Structure formats: C-alpha cells, structure tokens
C-alpha cells in the first residue's frame, strides 16, 4: 500500500509542468482534451446559427437565391483559399514547435497572421459594397429590389424577390460572417500573443509544443466554419 513519492514530479524551475499535474503527459493530454471540449462548445454556438439559416433558406429558397447574387463569389473564393493556406502554415508552425525550430515557428505564425489580415481586408470590401447598396439589415434596408439586385430580381417585369426575406438573408449573412470575423480577430490576438512568447523564448511555449498545438486547433476550427459558410452563402444553386 505504498504511496507514490517521486522526487519533485518534475516541478522544478525549468519545467513546464503545472503543479496540479503529475507529469507532462497528463498535462498535455488535459490541454488537448480541454481544447477539443471547448471547440465542441463552439460547434454548438455556430450550430444554432446554421440551424436558423437552414430553416429560413428552406422556406424562402428563391428569395435567398436572388438576394445572394449580390455576393461576390470571386472574393469569397479568394478568402477561402487564403484561409485554407493559413491553416497549412499553422500546421507547419505546430510541426516546427514540435521540432523546436523557433524561427520557423515565428515565420509560419507570421504568414498565418498575414493571411488573416488579407481575409479581413477582403471582408471589409465586401461589407462596404453591401452597405453602399443598403443591403444591411435594419430600418435602412433597401426597398427597391430592382436597384439592389438588378435584372436577376425581375421576372416578367415584376419584382420576384420578397424584400423582407432578402433582409432576413442579410441579417444572417452579417450575423454569421460577422461572428466568424470576431473569431478571426480573437485568433489574431492569440497568434500575436503566441508569436511574442516564442520571440521572448518563454518556457511555456518552448519546452512543450502543446500550447502551440492548441492555438492551431482553434485556428483550424475557425477555418472549418468558413468552409461551411462559403458554400452556404456564396454557392447557392438556383432553386426550381
């Protein structure tokens, strides 16, 4: 019935081990499980919005189709490519962390940041063009469907789109891409903090790669949300 009495559990000054954990393996496992559990909460958070979107699109298919045509598929595709690439650079950053190659980590993280900024810049242009055409939800929403959506919105000389439902579409567009953008911004802040830690050779990141991996997991999740948003909003097939 002996108790375990290891010398200091490796809790010395040079250790990245926190006091509540027995060993670095337990700590790493805990951090990774914790991040996955957190990501599951994010799935539920975005999931509710995807549910609302699905419901309304199912009910107002034509209106959503006509409304979506104002979105620029090219810009959306560029953004998708940029984010996918940033996930790649993030994976490379994590691998470099495992290999303890500090400058590579910083480099890859920096490229990831650049991609994030490109994404946000393109989003800025997209949002501006919506605002210019009064396609933002609220009291000021466009009332002239022809002016807003062009010829696509007309059928046999009459407006074929219900502007109220178009407003619903843009509510969801700004709500969901906006929430996603907030997560991108949060990611930028975290990556900046991570770069700073690596730059300062902080033991919390240099001794153990898991903190970097956790940021990577988060970034992949944010990318994944966009992978769903893009086809849903930009790549709508014409309903029959």
């Amino acid at each position, binding site marked *: 019935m002996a108790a375990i009495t290891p010398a200091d559990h490796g809790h010395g000054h040079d250790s990245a081990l926190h006091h*509540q954990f027995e060993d670095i393996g*337990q700590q790493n496992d*805990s951090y990774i499980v914790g991040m996955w559990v957190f990501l599951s909460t994010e799935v539920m958070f975005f999931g509710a919005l995807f549910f*609302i979107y699905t419901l309304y699109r199912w009910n107002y298919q034509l209106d959503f189709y006509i409304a979506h045509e104002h979105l620029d598929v090219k810009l959306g595709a560029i953004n998708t490519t940029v984010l996918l690439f940033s996930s790649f650079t993030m994976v490379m950053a994590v691998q470099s962390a495992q290999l303890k190659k500090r400058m590579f980590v910083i480099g890859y993280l920096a490229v990831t940041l650049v991609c994030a900024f490109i994404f946000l810049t393109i989003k800025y242009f997209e949002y501006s063009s919506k605002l210019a055409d009064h396609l933002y939800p*609220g009291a000021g929403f466009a009332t002239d469907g022809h002016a807003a959506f062009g010829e696509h919105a007309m059928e046999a000389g009459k407006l074929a789109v219900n502007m109220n439902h178009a407003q619903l579409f843009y509510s969801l567009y700004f709500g969901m891409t906006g929430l996603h953008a907030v997560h991108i911004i949060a990611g930028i802040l975290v990556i900046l903090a991570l770069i700073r830690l690596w730059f300062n050779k902080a033991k919390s990141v240099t001794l153990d790669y898991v903190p970097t991996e956790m940021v990577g997991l988060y970034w992949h999740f944010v990318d994944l949300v966009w992978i769903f948003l893009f086809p849903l909003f930009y790549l709508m097939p014409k309903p029959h």
Partner: protein
Amino acid sequence: MSSTVIPSGELQPHVDETNYLNVSHTISSWLLTGDHKRIALLYLVSTSFFFFLGSVAAGLIRYELTSPAGVVLESDTYNKVFSSHGILMVFTFLVVAIPAIFGNFLVPLMIGARDLAFPRLNLASWYMYMTGGTLILAGMVFGGVDTGWTFYTPYSSMYSNGQVTMVIIGIFIAGFSTITTGINFVVTIHKMRAPGMTWFRLPLFIWAMYATSLMMILATPVVAITLLLVVYERTFKLPIFSPELGGDPVLFQHLFWFYSHPAVYIMILPAFAVISELIANFSRKRIFGYHFVAFSSLAIAGLGFLVWGHHMFVSSQSMYESIVFSLISFLVAVPSAIKIFNWMATMYKGNIRLQSPMIYAIAFLMIFTVGGLTGLFLGAAGTDIHLTATYFVVAHFHYVMVGGTMLAFLGALHYWWPKMTGRMFADGIARVNAVIVFIGFNLTFFPQFIVGWLGMPRRYHYYYFAPEFQAYHIMSTLGASVLGLGFILPAFYLTKSLFTGEKASANPWGAHGLEWETSSPPPTSNFLETPIVMDEVYDFDPVSDHAEDLRRIAEEQQRKLNDSNRPSEDHN
C-alpha cells in the same frame, strides 16, 4: 471504515497547521487564487448574495399576491419583480450553486487530485460569473426587465421597454462561466483521477457532475447565441424572430428551450449527486444499484436534450412534434424514478443516522417525488393544454427546484461545512431547521397546484376576475414566511459556528470518500501524497457498523452509570 490513501505513519496535518484557509490572509491571495477550494468559497459568498436578492423578489411577489388587486406595486413594477426573481434564481443561483461551490470544492478531492485541470480558467470562471451577475443587477437597478426569464419574442425584441440588452449581456457572460466550469470538470474527471480510481469506483457525486458538465458544455452555447440574437434584433431592428418581416417568433422558443430544458437538468443532477452522497454515508451503506444510478445520470443528460418541445405544446408547433416530445418526456422520467427507488433501497437494512444532512435528504426524497410526478401531468400533451402557464407549472418547478435543488444545496452545505471550514455547527438546531424548511415549503407551494388547476395563470399581477383564488394565495404567502425563516436561520447558526463551533476532525460524520481522508479544512494541495485507491466506493459494512454502534451505545450507558454512581466527585 475505509482504507487506502496515505501510508501508515504519515499523519494528516492537524487542523492547527497550515490549511487552505489560513495559508495566507491577503485579499489578493483570495481574489487571485488558483485553489479550487478558495474559488468554491468565493462562489459560496457570491451565490448566496444573489440568492438573497432573488428571495427578496419572491417575498415581494408573495406579498403582492395576497390581494386580487395587488397591494403596493404597479403592474409594471410587479412584472419586473417576477422577471428578476426568475433571472436571478435561474441564471445566478440554481445553475451555478451546487456545481460551482461543491463541484469545485469536491471534484479534485473526491478523485484524489491536487486541483482541477485548469485552475486559472476556474478563477476566470468566477470573474465571468461576477461580471455577468453585476451586469444583470445593473440592468435591474437601471430600469429592470419585464420579459420574464424566458425573454419570449417578439415582446422582448420589439416591444419591451426595459434593460433587456444589458441583462441579456450579463446572462451571456455568466453563461461562459458555466461553460468553462463544465470544460474544467470534464477534463479533470477524465484525466486526473488518482491511481486506482477507476470509473466505477468514483463516488456517484462525480458521475452526476460529469453528466451535468456535458450538458453545460453542449447546451449553454445555444442559449448564448439565441439571446445574443435577441439583442441583435433589438438593437438593429432586425428580422430574425419578427413576423412582420418573415421571421418566426416560435423559432426563438425552440432555440431557447433547447438550452433551457437541459438547464433544468443542469440544476437537478448536481442535487442528485449530493443526495447520493448523503444517503450512502448516512445509511452507512453502499448505494443500491450503483451502476444503474451512475448510468441514469447519463441517460437524463442525453434524453434531456430531446424533450424541449414539451414547453411548447400550445405554441403552435405541430401536433406530431408535440406527440414525439411528449413520448420522450415520459422516457426521461424513468431514470429519475430509478434513482428514487435505489436511494430508498439503500436505506433498507442500513444503519441510519438522522443528522441534519440526512433530514434534508429524506425531505428531498419526498418533495422531489411530488415534483417529478407532477411533471407527468405536464409531459402528457393533453393534460398540459389546461395546465400550461398556470400556477400548476409554477408549483411543479418550485417543487423540483426549491424542494429538490435547494434542499440538496442545504444538505450539502451542512454535510461538507466541517470539511470546508474546519468547524462543526450545532446539529440540533440544524435538524429543526430542516423540518421548518420542509413544512414551510409544502405550505407555500402545495396550494399553488390547486390554484393552478383552477385556472390561475402565472405571471399575473391582478386576479380580480377570479377572487376565489385569494384564499390559496394567502395560504401560500403564509407558508413562504415559514420557508423564509428556514432559509435565514442557517445563515446565523452556520456563521456562528465559524467563531464558536467545535473544531472538526478529518471525518466528523464517519463517512467514506477521499475528501474525508484529509484534514478539515484540507491543505492547499489537498493531500500530502497522491492517494492510491484500493477499495470500492462507499465501502461500508452495515453489520459491523451496527455492531460498532451497539458497542458505542453500551459504552455510553456504562459511562453514565459510572458517573451517577460517583456523586461526590467533580464532573468535568
């Protein structure tokens, strides 16, 4: 009594030595602590404060309802008072209290860990709770909300004139406190159990906390985004839930109840967790059907996600939706029934000590049974049509929330008080208090079943159309005064025990569990050495325990006899 843990010869630190309470006294050592036990006490103080405010609101409601035409409040104010009561009680007390106080304190202790997996996240959790709670209070002070705690649209998003946005943001932030606590518990329970602490040696408290945490993690984000959408709608006059623009007000209800039904299980599962511990330890007997009880917690968590539509039978959802939700609601009642019967079977042939925590546990059994059974009236869609949104529903949920969760909270507070504070309280008055609570509770809420069946709607300020309801309201208010007394008294005798109570030993109740193997109060790192678990959980033997009792009683009698035979000596 059990086993394990510390190698022989290794004494537990005497209570005069350093423990988590006296290790440092500065304010920053409390406000910047990572120690799960200190954080639990921070939650105890703050949740008690919010509970007090919510109770004041309840008192106002009951006072106002003694007359069909009100007494002192305007309708607008009354509506804000009942909304505050609901919001404070649900979001700042019931969802939080048992997990954040007793979960935080006990999860590491019960599994043999030094702390939770993420202590700094735990502290952040408390700050999120305080921020959210403060915003909610600010909203109430600067105008209040009158939407009810359910915030139904379009009233909340397009019509109400209160501080809806501020209060919702407070709830949103407090919700993140719940989510992070849930993450912490799940990771801790999975990854930080002591050697030998297998899943089926875990106390049932841990099983129930685990199931609760799963619900916290998966359900809370949904209500967070839903309430955020209400703010979004309100601020920018958007259509998501407004019918004029093609939105669907009933969609809000689906999203809201998708969280809020699991939320009520988040409120009751921790109570079940406590009751399992109380009944096992005060019956000195392993819980009957341990596996069934453990899995029933998971079943409740799982099925609890599938029944939300039973809050919406008259919302205009389709008949078929309603029938499916009704069926699953009857299924989810079964695991709770299993628990009640298993707890009773645990008492059978046990060696029962009727100290105050056990009185609370027995009261729980009786009251929760009524609460659970009356849920059947509401789960059956046909009978729900007449009873929904009446005082019958109010009585049902107060039976399970107050008679259930609150009684378990009080039982837990009394049971673990000596462990948390190192002091024992006067059990005599505590037992009387438990009876006062039981009586006051039934006097308050039983008449509400009747008046609800008669047709009295909830959230009603005036009922002058139906003055025949008045007698029941008066009965209920009288009961509430008794109940209030039962809630206030512990504040006094428990606080008093901090100053004048007997110092508690490591295991004053003679209970089983790793938390009782360390000193009262425990040292900061919980155990001097990592325990190794060799025994099963609740390892009591009632037969030898009974023999032990008989021996102790005989000794007691002998001592009294000896004392009375020596009248000339001093009695110390």
